[in-house]
């Protein structure tokens, strides 16, 4: 038995830890998405981009010998909830014989969850299981912290490209690494290397928040390395959606009998008088408002072409820009998005933010003297 799973940002790192501890054989789809084209060819034309890319991931994993597919999920009221079934149907008619293991945290009790995981946990001690889960959770936190550190350093580095070099090397190694110890070690050493990059502490970077659909916001392949691009332009990037917050929202909060609220989601209700507009739509709205209040210079909103909840969320941005005075740019991504035009738009947006900041500064100076 060999297991594979669709990528979602750096989720593969904690999953590796978990599988290694439980001694489960697995295949990690390549980060360069070598089956990207095939995934698209097998998908319906108007499926959202994450569907097509994750299908490519699965094909990649299957080619590496996987016969089981692990699906995490439950993302409010949206197409995401139906990915697994359609992926299964497509894989089947393409002649692949795989077993799907679906973990839908929004519709499952803890018992059901453990039932689904039985083939993997059978014969393994409880202690090992607990150790696996705790180590995986700890890894998520470490991996997200590493990304945050990278974002902080990248915009301040003296030698452009230093941060990306470290992170690229890290990604190459981590995908091959085995076991909690080695993975932890790699994260630590990457952190150390990041910290030794010479930075300009005087530099005052523009601060930009990325909000939107989770997949496009956090996956560097999907968003064409938006974070590095912004960082290289001297922008400090804050990504409000992270794997750790996703795991907390969709895993931990659902399993624990607590009714914790997501702050951004609640804030989004300021403009939408309802509990849910599907997916992470309300969080997008809330995060845009919160970013304005936290004094960010701008917001970049990103989502896959035809994404239902984000189209609804986007309607509120004119209002947010007016009310809170923060510029928001929307970048819609699909498989045909050209990198050149995309980067030009990012550059133009950053230029505009910079000019805006200068004007503000001049105004403050004039008023002060």
């Amino acid at each position, binding site marked *: 038995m060999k297991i594979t799973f669709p990528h979602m940002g750096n989720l593969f790192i904690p999953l590796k830890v978990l599988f290694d501890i439980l001694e489960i054989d697995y295949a990690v789809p390549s980060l360069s998405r070598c089956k990207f084209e095939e995934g698209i060819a097998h998908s319906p034309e*108007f499926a959202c981009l994450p569907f097509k890319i994750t299908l490519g991931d699965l094909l990649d994993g299957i080619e590496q010998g996987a016969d089981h597919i692990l699906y995490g999920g439950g993302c409010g009221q949206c*197409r995401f909830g*139906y990915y697994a079934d*359609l992926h299964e149907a497509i894989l089947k008619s393409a002649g692949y014989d795989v077993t799907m293991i679906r973990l839908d945290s929004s519709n499952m009790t803890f018992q059901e969850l453990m039932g689904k995981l039985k083939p993997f946990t059978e014969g393994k001690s409880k202690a090992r299981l607990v150790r696996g889960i705790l180590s995986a959770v700890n890894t998520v936190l470490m991996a997200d912290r590493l990304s945050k550190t990278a974002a902080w350093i990248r915009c301040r580095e003296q030698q452009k490209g230093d941060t990306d070099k470290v992170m690229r090397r890290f990604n190459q190694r981590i995908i091959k690494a085995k076991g909690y110890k080695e993975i932890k070690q790699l994260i630590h050493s990457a952190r150390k290397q990041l910290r030794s990059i010479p930075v300009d502490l005087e530099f005052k970077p523009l601060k930009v928040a990325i909000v939107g659909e989770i997949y496009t916001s956090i996956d560097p392949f999907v968003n064409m390395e938006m974070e590095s691009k912004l960082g290289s332009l001297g922008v400090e990037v804050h990504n409000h959606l992270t794997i750790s917050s996703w795991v907390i929202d969709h895993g931990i909060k659902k399993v624990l009998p607590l009714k914790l609220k997501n702050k951004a989601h609640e804030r989004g209700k300021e403009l939408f*008088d*309802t509990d849910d507009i599907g997916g992470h739509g309300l969080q997008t709205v809330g995060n845009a408002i919160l970013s304005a209040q936290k004094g960010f210079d701008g917001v970049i909103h990103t989502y896959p072409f*035809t994404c*239902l909840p984000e189209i609804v969320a986007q*309607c509120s941005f*004119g209002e947010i820009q007016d009310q809170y005075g923060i510029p928001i740019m929307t970048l819609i991504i699909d498989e045909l998005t050209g990198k050149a035009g995309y980067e030009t738009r990012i550059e133009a947006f950053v230029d505009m933010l910079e000019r805006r900041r200068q004007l503000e500064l001049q105004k403050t100076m004039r008023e002060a003297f």
Partner: protein
Amino acid sequence: MTKIGLPKALFYYQHSAVWEGFFRNLGCEVIVSGDTNKEILDRGVRCCSNDTCLPVKVFHGHVDILKGNVDYVFIPRYTCLINREYTCPKFCGLPEMTYLNLDKQVRLLEISLNVETGHMEAAKGLKTVSKSLDLDYRAAEEAFQNALRELEQGYKKCENSFGEPVAKERDRKRQTLAVLGHPYMIYDKYLSMKLLEKLRSRNISIVTPADLEYQTKRRHAVPYQEKVFWEVGLDNLGSAFVFAGSENIDGIIYLTPFACGVDSFVIEFIERRLKSDYTVPFLKLTVDEHTGEAGFDTRLEAFLDMIG
């Protein structure tokens, strides 16, 4: 008399009677926007982002046309009308979406419908309704309960009582085609490019999901029987396989708007299963704001010729 505008789009095609009744009961005059036309479409396109689905764009156009002639435009917020069956996410945010896209230049009334919370969220909208219409809250509440009952009954009975099995006897002289799609696509003459009329004029008889019993459709909605799915998805999915399994259906046409997230999945499920388990001819017709009628007709005719 307070004038309430009902946009002739989206929910209108299934629930117009319920909401017209609701407002008339409350002593209002109900004004329905006219049939969709080019101007309405253009207005809608202008206020929506490009990748918004066609029916929602058109909905905006209807509201835009209505807003000057009425006191309020009514937009219900459908979240869930039947347990474990959800509407498209766009329906949950529709009131605000329209309001914001029209630059807040429209006065709206809104009522939330979510059966899973016992329609608790409706109270807020009803309060606004009763205040705006200068009515007692209890009157609004009562009219609402009536409306709910009607909505519920609407699901239980099937309107054309075509029933199961599809058509008792085969009419040898006439072909029968099944037309699938959102009600606001197939029954909107402009968006459907008069598909139903065109078929009828060729003496073809037509069946749609509205001709099947609710339970029949749910039972056949592979792979989502008993499972959580989109409401309209279940209708089309189930109908497709009921029709495909009937000897009396000569072909199935699925009319889908550009950029519909729900259809993109539903049609894929249907097409795959039709290919592997059935022989019935299937045609998917996609309509967007640039679709020319000529091209549409050519595709339709080619299909009709094929099934002979």
